């Protein structure tokens, strides 16, 4: 018997140069350019997330509310610090800013309709406000971004809130991309760009640099909107504690902190995978910053970045968030990654549930495309209903957890309602590690 047939063959993979690393190196060796894709981080290595916390419902020490019956308020008021017309929502889950360009027309309108149906809000995005978005949004937040594409004072004045975006969780410190297949005639007109360019948005605002300028900029935005509507400042989560303090000092009514799990239509992959801090850590730093300034509860905190369901949302709220933004989850409700038109996923070299090809503009289900034929695959009313349903289900999940913790208002959830399942989560969130009475590291 030969040696080769008697010895089992063992393939030993490098822990450093894994298959995906080899593929990445060889792709860049061909292209000479960094990788670009959509969706958000694909990192497999775990970091502390909301899954590392568990709720501690009532038993004898506390009394629960009836889970399916008793009143548990979800009313959410944002922006009462300086604005004359704070935003009042029926639920604490809102739709984050995603541009018409990154998303199709049908997707944008469906999000607006779906959110409005359940008393939530919608947000514009890079490129400005679509008329149909305003018409179909009960509450619409107008984003003022570094690119200022489509900036229009009249649209600002038609909005219910202004969001001054400094950064985004998927790519803090850099601007977004909209590749040529998505810079259609319509999008080019909306953004005043040549058709078919690879649009790369700026990282900095054109007329302000640091936090001192931002104080004046916020006053300008208030003047432009008659001091009526609240001003949000949105930050990509990096140096959260200091950034939140600066935003609050500059006069923001609300601060939005977008963690590293946040999504994007197209960005350099390295930013999605290797910049920013996790949403769990971000909410804890943000709360600490506001508490240290004596502004917790006065400046509202909105948390974004990879929020999947009512459980994530409830945990973020227990840690200090007043409201939650969802983006990718809402797109998944629209049909993102649903096993429809599977052949078209294959044409992109992927499969349903594995698709992160938003940047190609060839979205098989019509969500992240400007192709009119693909867009037809997303009927607006049906898609809007799914968005409403998701928001309703998430709200019910938050309420159920709140009731089990004895709360008659979802905003009464608190860190004491949870235990940590890992030492890291305990140290970050300052809640005791399960099985101990100790906060790790304290």
């Amino acid at each position, binding site marked *: 018997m030969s040696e080769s047939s008697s010895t089992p063959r063992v393939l030993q993979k490098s822990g450093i140069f894994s298959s995906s690393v080899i593929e990445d190196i060889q*792709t860049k060796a*061909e*292209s*000479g*350019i960094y*990788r*670009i*894709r959509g969706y958000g981080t694909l990192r497999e290595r775990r970091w502390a997330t909301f899954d590392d916390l568990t709720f501690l419902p009532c038993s004898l020490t506390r009394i629960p509310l009836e889970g399916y019956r008793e009143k548990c308020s979800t009313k959410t008021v944002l922006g009462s610090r300086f604005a004359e017309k704070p935003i009042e929502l029926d639920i604490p889950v809102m739709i984050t800013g995603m541009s018409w360009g990154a998303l199709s027309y049908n997707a944008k309108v469906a999000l607006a309709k779906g959110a409005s149906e359940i008393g939530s809000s919608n947000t514009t995005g890079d490129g400005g406000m679509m008329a149909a978005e305003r018409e179909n949004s009960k509450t619409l937040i107008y984003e003022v971004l570094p*690119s*200022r594409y489509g*900036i*229009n*004072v*009249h649209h*600002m*004045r038609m909005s219910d809130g202004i969001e001054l975006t400094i950064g985004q969780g998927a790519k803090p410190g850099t601007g977004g991309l909209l*590749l*040529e297949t998505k810079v259609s005639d319509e999008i080019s007109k909306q*953004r*005043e*760009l*040549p058709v*078919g*360019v*690879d649009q790369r948005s*700026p990282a900095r605002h*054109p*007329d*302000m640099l640091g936090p001192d*300028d931002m104080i*004046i*900029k916020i*006053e*300008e935005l208030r*003047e*432009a*909107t008659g*001091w009526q509507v609240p001003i949000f400042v949105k930050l990509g989560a990096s140096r959260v504690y200091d950034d939140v303090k600066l935003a609050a000092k500059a006069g923001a009514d609300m601060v939005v902190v977008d963690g590293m799990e946040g999504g994007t239509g197209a960005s350099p992959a390295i930013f999605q995978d290797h910049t920013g801090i996790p949403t769990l850590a971000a909410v804890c730093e943000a709360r600490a910053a506001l508490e240290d300034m004596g502004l917790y509860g006065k400046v509202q905190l909105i948390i974004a970045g990879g929020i999947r369901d009512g459980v994530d949302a409830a945990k973020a709220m227990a840690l200090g968030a007043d409201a939650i933004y969802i983006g990718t989850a809402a797109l998944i409700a629209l049909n993102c990654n649903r096993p429809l038109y599977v052949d078209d996923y294959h044409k*992109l*070299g*992927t499969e349903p549930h594995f698709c*992160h*090809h938003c*940047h*190609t503009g060839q979205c098989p289900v019509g969500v992240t495309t400007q192709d009119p034929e693909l867009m037809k695959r997303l009927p607006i009313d049906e898609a809007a209903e799914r968005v409403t349903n998701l928001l309703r289900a998430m709200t019910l999940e938050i309420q159920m957890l709140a009731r089990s913790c004895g709360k008659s208002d979802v905003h009464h959830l608190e860190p004491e309602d949870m235990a940590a399942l890992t030492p890291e989560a305990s140290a970050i969130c300052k809640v005791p590690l399960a099985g101990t009475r100790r906060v790790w590291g304290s």
Partner: protein
Amino acid sequence: MAKLTCEGRTIREINAEIRRLLKDGEAVTVSSPGARHNLGVALLESGDVLFDGSVGYYCAGLIDGVKVRIKGSAGWGLAESMLSGEVIVEGNAGNSAGAAIRGGALVVQGDSGARTGVSMKNGLIIVTGSCGYMSGFMGQGGKMIICGDAAEAFGDSMYETICFVGGEIADLGNDAIVAESTDEDKQFLDASLTRYLPASVCANLPDGGDFKKVVSDRKLWNFKKSEWKTWEQAL
């Protein structure tokens, strides 16, 4: 002509009063502006407003249709995001004058700071003096005329803004090139300068034909086409 003093009034009160007077059809003279920030923001009525002194940041920002004259100098972000109208500053302008404007005309009768016309989408900017570092950065459309010198990185990463420089260009920005001027360009320059500048100023400016025309070389508009297929597969 209605007169309004800034003394003893908040910015909110000053702007509200300017808007009320414009609505009543009055031309407004605003005295003692004291270089305060956010004067004349979001004026959406047509009419004339004169600031009798220097103004701070974002003066005449987010306006649509009004004509503003500043008898002094202006801080950062003058006329930023203007949709239409006319802003004339008789002195110098700070950084980011005319940032992201989508229409209208901004005239700086002195020098302007860094990033003049940054991200401008349309409209016209004229600077009779010189402009600072990185002016024209990411300009998407419209025209910018610098009668004096342009500092380093001029016209960096532009899309379709067309710039004209009467003096020296210290250094062109990424993807900016000097293109050949046409007769049409000369006519445009002569007409624009005559329209917006006093004859005494025009008399001392270079002839329209002597301005250098700076445009985008369009090499940054797209990643190389040959790479597109790679991106498509490189997922």
